[in-house]
């Protein structure tokens, strides 16, 4: 197999993922006009992109386990802290 032939095959291998990503993106636009949440579709896009386009599925599992759970934890904490900041804004703790 030639070098160019091999690279052509890999593009063909990722074409299904590419079309799925395009379809999900199109689905987001459709759902937005129907007033439905697109959160689930965005999560699927994220997982597909991370695992296949960024090749995380082909790396050692320890890399995935080191990076992703900690990131999700930090993002969840950010979410909680932001809501707390809004609550504090309403309470105005130092206003009295």
């Amino acid at each position: 197999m030639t070098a160019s032939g091999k690279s052509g095959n890999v593009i063909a291998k990722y074409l299904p993922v590419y079309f799925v990503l395009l379809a999900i993106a199109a689905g987001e636009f459709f759902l937005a006009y129907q007033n439905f949440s697109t959160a689930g579709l965005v999560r699927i896009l994220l997982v597909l992109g991370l695992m296949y386009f960024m090749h995380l599925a082909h790396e050692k599992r320890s890399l995935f386990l080191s990076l992703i759970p900690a990131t999700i934890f930090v993002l969840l904490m950010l979410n909680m802290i932001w809501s707390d900041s809004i609550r504090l804004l309403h309470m105005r703790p130092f206003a009295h």
Partner: protein
Amino acid sequence: MSEPEIAMHGQGGALMEESPYSIPSRKLTMWLFIISDAITFGAILFAYGYLRVATPDWQTPFKSASIINVATMTFVLITSSLTMLGAVDASKAGDKPKALRFLASTMVLGLIFAGLHIREWFGLFDEGIKLSSGLFGQAFFSITGLHFLHVITGVAALAVVARKYSSGSLTPGHVETTGLYWHFVDLVWMFVVPLVYLTNIAR
């Protein structure tokens, strides 16, 4: 010698510890950068979300023309990720001309995306929405501006990597590492679109 082996044994590696994930250190460094950048975007998008919900008279300025423009930008960016995969793969297969063609395609698609982005911004300027025109303008231009900066930086990085890879001073591993960054910029856009554009459609 494979890249993980080079990472373990190359450049006086006998004195160094084995790579913890069997990947070159530059790739691990890029992953750590991506994680920190993801948290930066996460913080900004969370802040945007709370502002959006807590502001009663939030602007919803995006008409059909804007949404079509954003859909085109999304298509361009997802396609650029595919051409980037082609560049990484061709470089690993040793097909330098093909890798350079794919890199050039990715850069062109990145520039088209940036051009469409600027067109979108000028459309909003015409409607009186600017960085200084209230919470919506500040949030919108901060988030999209940061992403735009990432795209432009990515195009510049791709140009440098393509030139040096062409001259032989960079390896396929460098192309792959730059590709990781490019895919990340693509993924961030997938969050920006629903949060910033699709929740603000004019009805």
